[in-house]
């Protein structure tokens, strides 16, 4: 199979195949935490960080699971490692950077059930990415998630001051906005495919 270059992977994951807007991953926090800008950014940052950790762990795990021919344990081990990674990140952060912990702490538990994280692990396995590719993929996924979250939060903050009809308020509005954003992101299709 032809190898996708790192740039291609990054660009595609951030823009054309944005995790949230094109792959529907991480929708729950996307809808839930995108209400305000000042929570969107830390959430995005925390998620990106955990994605990177999870990607690294999943790469190692996948290697082990393949070597020992225990493929049927892959999913379980992924989900366990992600949950542990979140815990670990939480503890390390608490110890060495309490300020960061205070900023991100409340979002970390939410991240465990964020399907975007598991998505990173599963997709990098399915696509047989090398370690470098996997890490770039995780970076792109995190950046794409954060970007989508920020855009959404900006729009929703603005719409808080608008005369949105009652019927549309709430999740329906968020979904419609996500649809429009997704429509706009279609413009990135094929970006980086050329050369």
């Amino acid at each position, binding site marked *: 199979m032809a190898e996708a270059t790192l740039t291609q992977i990054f660009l595609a994951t951030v823009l054309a195949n944005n995790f949230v*807007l*094109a*792959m*529907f*991953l*991480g*929708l*729950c*926090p996307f*809808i*839930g*935490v995108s209400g305000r800008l000042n929570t969107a950014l830390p959430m995005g940052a925390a998620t990106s960080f955990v994605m990177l950790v999870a990607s690294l762990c999943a790469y190692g795990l996948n290697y082990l699971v393949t070597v020992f021919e225990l493929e*049927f344990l*892959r*999913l*379980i081990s992924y*989900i*366990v490692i992600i*949950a542990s990674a979140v815990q670990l990140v939480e503890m390390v952060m608490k110890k060495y950077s309490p300020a960061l912990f205070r900023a991100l702490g409340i979002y970390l*538990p*939410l991240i465990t*059930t*964020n*399907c975007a*994280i*598991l*998505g990173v692990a*599963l*997709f990098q396995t*399915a696509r047989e990415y090398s370690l470098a590719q996997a890490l770039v993929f995780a970076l792109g996924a995190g950046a794409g998630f954060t970007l989508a979250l920020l855009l959404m939060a900006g729009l929703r903050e603005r719409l808080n001051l608008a005369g949105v009809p*009652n*019927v*549309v*308020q*709430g*999740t*329906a*509005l968020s*979904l*419609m906005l*996500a*649809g*429009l954003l*997704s*429509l706009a992101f*279609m413009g990135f299709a094929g970006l980086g495919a050329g050369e």
Partner: protein
Amino acid sequence: MVIPGQTPPTNLDEFLEGIWKQNPVFVMVLGLCPALAVTVSAVNALAMGAATTFVLLGSALLVSLMRRIVPREVRIATYIVIIATFVTIVDYLIAAISLELYEALGAFIQLIVVNCMILGRAEAHASKFAPGRALINALGMGIGFSIGLFALGSVREILGAGTLFGVPLFGPDFQPWVVMVLPPGGFFVLGAWLLLFNWWRNRKPAPREPVVAAGEASHG
């Protein structure tokens, strides 16, 4: 959920809860990722619904059986392991039944693990009730989820391809609305369904607040 002082819900109530009152897709808006990603056709939607229902039933059974011996400190970890087990099982089953379907659903079968609805059910219901009741409730939830997915998948397939279950509905000259099977279409169709529900709820004289269990609405 069960509120002290009220008559305990009958089995029928348990069953109907997930289908109507707490429909995971339309009322609780849970499990969105698979709901939107795989519902490009009615078949995929139903397959995903069935797979999720299977995991719901299996995990409800096991969690309910173990409810007395699982210490609360490790209960979430236990539930996740149990759910992941059933997801792996259903993953292999689908691959064994039809590779085509397996590829159509892709990684989203495995992503059932993080469908918060399932963990939510295990935590809020199965861990508290006997297997029979837990299974009935899980079945209701599963069917409710499947109905939700089907509502999405059928609309997207009809508009996006002019077919339902692969059967052409409008003859060969129908112009498909490609956007419907693309990601924006997923958002729009679910958004439109929610709009419809909102509108329907708003037009009733005394709109009742949707019952949302605290433990389930909090995490995405």
